[in-house]
């Protein structure tokens, strides 16, 4: 009888190659996702050393960080920024040179790398998956050993199909309670980060478990795992279950027929065994959790909508309040954003857009909101939303409906905040200048962002009624 193992232990062991001469562990990488910003130097290094690609079909690429969200019918000609154009073209060239499957700017399946991976069935349970992007933790929602890596590691994976990865500790986040209507996975993960801090999960793989997680959709679980990195963990995980099976089945690259049956049998084992040892467990009851809003410049600086801005407890928090132009004691519901961004790998999937549309339906964007925009996470999400008429719900309310990409989550493309702009954003980071130089970010759920657009200030979506 083997001793009980965590999901992370199982995934680590099934991908473990062995130890190198220096004692570090190598794990095998099944899937490698590439984008235009963190891959060019890796390909250049590979070429300079004259090394071949280890396994072509492990790799899939898309352009997401830099692409404009307007004028997309112009393709590359629609990119005004010379640097961005070079990066997007370089990715095109590198993929052509190595015959790597690439959803470029002209592809109708292009999108944010962490959105297209799962939706196309490129990210499958039991895999190990890497990408030169910290939000790669997202894919862990499908019981995938997924982690963000740096560019040197991207080159390493291209050349060796392996990653130096020494075993992490195990952290379990146990979520219980039924969230109130209008309270989402985004609120849960923000509350968790507030609790344990942005370094709370460092050195650990973070598995989300418990009855609340079991009841969540895969898209909601992706929101949880997506922001594991904001809690310090480069890996987020959720066990495989029937919900995972239903999500993966019939995806474009999912196995079929006999192969599907065999995969299912294997995937059934992708959970932590009863009695498996976790180095740490954090419990969070979300039953009474209010919608969360960040007030500072770190994702741990978060409050419930019914709270006031706290007194700063450190020079870092003082500085954050100054940057955000907020005073301790001010009520969150008195904060008036002038921009609203619904998008990003955290919250630009179809369920996010449906939830936001439900809040927006039949209303108008408030005066004082200079820009409210929806950026669907992928071409597929865009098409699905249009088929449901969601784009009309938003545009008739005064939102802009844009083309897919990372957009204002990090503002590498033309979508960025101006100095002093205050943004209700469904993205993942409220760092100084993250969404644009001098811009101020409040991290919220899609429903909260939509409600802020309609009311011109943060409101408690639990009190709006109708949102389910």
């Amino acid at each position: 009888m083997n001793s009980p193992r965590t999901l992370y232990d199982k995934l680590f062991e099934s991908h473990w190659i062995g130890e190198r001469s220096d004692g570090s562990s190598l794990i095998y990488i099944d899937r490698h996702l590439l984008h235009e910003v963190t891959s060019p130097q890796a390909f250049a290094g590979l070429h300079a050393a004259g090394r071949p690609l280890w396994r072509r079909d492990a790799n899939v690429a898309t352009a997401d960080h830099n692409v404009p969200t307007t004028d997309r019918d112009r393709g590359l000609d629609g990119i005004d920024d010379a640097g961005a154009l070079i990066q997007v073209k370089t990715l095109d060239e590198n993929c052509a040179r190595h015959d790597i499957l690439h959803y470029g700017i002209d592809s109708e399946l292009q999108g944010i790398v962490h959105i297209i991976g799962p939706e196309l069935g490129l990210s499958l349970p039991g895999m190990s998956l890497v990408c030169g992007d910290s939000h790669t933790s997202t894919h862990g929602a499908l019981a995938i050993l997924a982690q963000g890596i740096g560019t040197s590691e991207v080159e390493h994976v291209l050349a060796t199909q392996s990653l130096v990865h020494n075993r992490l500790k195990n952290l379990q986040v146990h979520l219980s309670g039924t969230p109130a209507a209008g309270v989402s996975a985004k609120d849960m993960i923000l509350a968790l980060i507030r609790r344990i801090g942005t370094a709370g999960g460092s050195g650990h793989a973070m598995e989300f478990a418990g009855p609340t997680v079991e009841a969540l959709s895969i898209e909601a679980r992706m929101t949880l795992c997506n922001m594991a990195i904001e809690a310090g963990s480069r890996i987020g995980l959720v066990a495989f279950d029937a919900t995972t099976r239903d999500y993966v089945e019939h995806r474009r690259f999912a196995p079929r027929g006999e192969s599907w049956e065999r995969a299912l049998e294997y995937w059934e084992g992708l959970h932590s065994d009863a009695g498996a040892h976790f180095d740490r467990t954090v419990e969070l009851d979300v039953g009474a959790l209010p919608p969360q809003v960040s007030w500072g410049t770190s994702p741990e600086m978060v409050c419930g909508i019914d709270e006031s801005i706290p007194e700063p407890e450190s020079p870092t928090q003082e500085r954050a309040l100054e940057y955000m132009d907020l005073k301790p004691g001010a009520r969150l519901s008195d904060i008036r954003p002038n921009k609203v961004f619904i998008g990003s790998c955290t919250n630009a999937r179809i369920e996010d857009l449906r939830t936001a549309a439900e809040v927006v339906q039949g209303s108008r964007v408030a005066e004082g909101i200079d820009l409210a925009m929806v950026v669907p996470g992928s071409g597929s999400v865009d098409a699905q939303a249009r088929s449901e008429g969601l784009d009309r719900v938003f545009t008739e309310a005064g939102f802009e409906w844009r083309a897919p990409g990372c957009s204002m989550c990090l503002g590498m493309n033309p979508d960025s905040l101006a100095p002093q702009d205050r943004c209700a954003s469904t993205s993942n980071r409220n760092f100084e200048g993250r969404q644009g130089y001098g811009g101020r970010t409040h991290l919220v759920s899609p429903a909260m962002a939509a409600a802020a657009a309609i009311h011109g200030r943060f409101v408690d979506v639990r009190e709006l009624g109708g949102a389910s």
Partner: protein
Amino acid sequence: MQPFERHEGLTAPLRQDHVDTDQIIPKQFLKSIERSGFGANLFDSWRYLDEGRSDQRHTQRAINPDFILNRPGFAEASILIAGVNFGCGSSREHAVWALLDYGIRVVIAASFGDIFRQNANNNGLLTIALPEDVVQELMQHSEAGGHRLGVDLQSCLIEELSGGDTREFAIDPIARQKLLQGLDDIGLSLLERSAIEACEQRRCSTEPWVFAPLQDREPSP
């Protein structure tokens, strides 16, 4: 990668916790396909008074005189001392390239973001985690200016060059060896080629669907 054995240099205190990689190198400077040239934009939004653009000459920009690396006697610093969770956030290796390009060889902090630390190890930037009270003490020494440390990776000692305590530091032995030798990481892994192939074969039999060719199943439009 440049080996790291010993470094002596001037310190600079960065009195901030959770310094994220967006702060170390803001996004507008990531639009390069090179590994060099990022130093001029290290800590850009703290270091300069304007919003930087990648096509600007940094010598013509107004600098923020209050920022530590702009204060007299700190610009030549090669050892940075910071608070907890230095390098959290984005996985951008550009943050490490920017620090090295500026001339920083060592970062001492109370703790580091996991991905940043791995990136640092892969580029010969030494990261040393010390207890918070020790970091605070070093920052105080550093504040006065002209504070120099000798950091020896062979002996894992930090020496106060202007007199004072010598401190030990702990570092992952694997990371230490790698930094000391400036190893070609890919070359080292490729020595394990047969083990990688064996693992690939094993996975091919236990999870064959993972290895299904993608190109053949290119979807119809």
